[in-house]
């Protein structure tokens, strides 16, 4: 079953911008309140670990949106995508973003420090991010 692509792109963009916004706000507040110390070298570590979890995908989505905005409008309005790919992308995106957010939100209950937890979370987040990026790619490519 196929659905119009115009709205689906916006929905995916909303999911990613909301999730990334929450992550960015959490990290910013933690930095301002001194969670990561006062030294620049100490603060760089958590930012360096969390930003790569959403910036590449956000760049991809922005790239597609810019490309649509500068391309012809007629073909976009009639274009459709496979519903399965859209649902898969939505599900994986929401699950992935929740996993990243929960890694930070649940850290006070862990015996590991937040930085250790972030480093450890790379084990499951890196392959997960690969799957999410692949599903998003499949979604955009399935356009007809």
């Amino acid at each position, binding site marked *: 079953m196929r659905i119009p692509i115009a709205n689906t792109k916006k929905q995916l963009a909303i999911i990613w911008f909301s999730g990334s916004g929450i992550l960015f706000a959490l990290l910013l*507040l*933690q930095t301002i*309140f*001194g*969670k*990561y*110390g006062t030294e620049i070298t100490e603060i760089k570590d958590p930012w360096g670990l969390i930003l*790569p979890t959403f910036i*590449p995908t956000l*760049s*991809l989505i922005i*790239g*597609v949106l810019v*490309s649509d905005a500068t391309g012809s409008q007629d073909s976009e309005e009639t274009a459709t995508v496979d519903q399965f790919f859209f649902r898969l992308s939505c599900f994986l995106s929401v699950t992935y973003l929740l996993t990243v957010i929960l890694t*930070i*939100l649940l*850290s*006070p*209950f*862990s*015996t*590991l*420090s937040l*930085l*250790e937890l972030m480093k450890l979370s*790379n*084990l499951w987040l*890196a*392959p997960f991010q*690969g*799957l999410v*990026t*692949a599903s998003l*790619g*499949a979604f*955009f*490519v*399935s*356009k*007809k």
Partner: protein
Amino acid sequence: MLTKLYLMLAACFVMVMLSACANMSERERIYSEAIVVGTGIGTGMGAAASCVENRATYYTALERETEREVRTKQELEEARQDYERLRENGKNIVRTYRPIIRTYSPVIRSSSPVVRTYSPAHNIPQFPWPPPHPSAYSVIPSRLLPNLTNQNHLKDVAKKLEAAFDQAGYSQKKYYQVSDGFALISQLEQFDPDGTPRTPPDRWAADFRPPKIFSLSSYLKALFTANPGRYRIIAFIVTSQPFKESKETVTREEAMSWLDDGMIVLPESIGKQPYTEKHYCTAFIYEFEQPGKEKEPFFRPLSNLTGKDHLEKSKLWAALKQ
């Protein structure tokens, strides 16, 4: 391992996407291929960056390890040279004083009862003197100590201090000898920023323990603020000698070793010394902070609390009042 997985995923993704491009118009294919190639390059660069970072971390660790090894070897060599020098000096001293020892040995032997009486005192470990610089201190008012009577001795003061420690929950403490008096050292404890001891077993843990979450505010505090581990050791020093603390500071490990090396009970030779009006008691608080589990604890030269605050919050002040 992770890099390989990354690259495999990227390769699979590129193959799937290129095969999907077969049934598209020319323009769509160009767009799709651009996205696929872009994502592939991005993933590949991510993997390469991760690989380079891992290598860099590994080499930095290796470099540090090598530096540490070199430093240890140098220290060992210096220690060996010190030892040789001391041994040589010792031989010279023995050589110089041998005739004197021979001459006076009968006298020393004849006065052996006196030597035996005081010999236990010489085996008592000495507290560093003058005491290392504390984070905070408080002079205990004489009204909180035993009355000045002819019958009171230092052992009575020790009993009072021990009882206060027991009442406040400190079960382990050690005695040291100081100039004309003694020092009573508490075990290391963890405390909250306001000076209140943490609840056991975290109170007596030597390793970093994250704060307990029991309410929304404590959760938010733990989530957004740094929660350093705070440790302290309390030392009561009873002496008749006026003293000034030294400028030297102690590490947490050194302070913890005080509890290993001291005496469990106050030796009789010190306990039976009279408690005079010249004697006074000072509480020295040595505070340490550990910013995080992976960080080393460090000595805080100036506590946020006064010495009296520390004693009040630890309930020692109230126990001394009784």
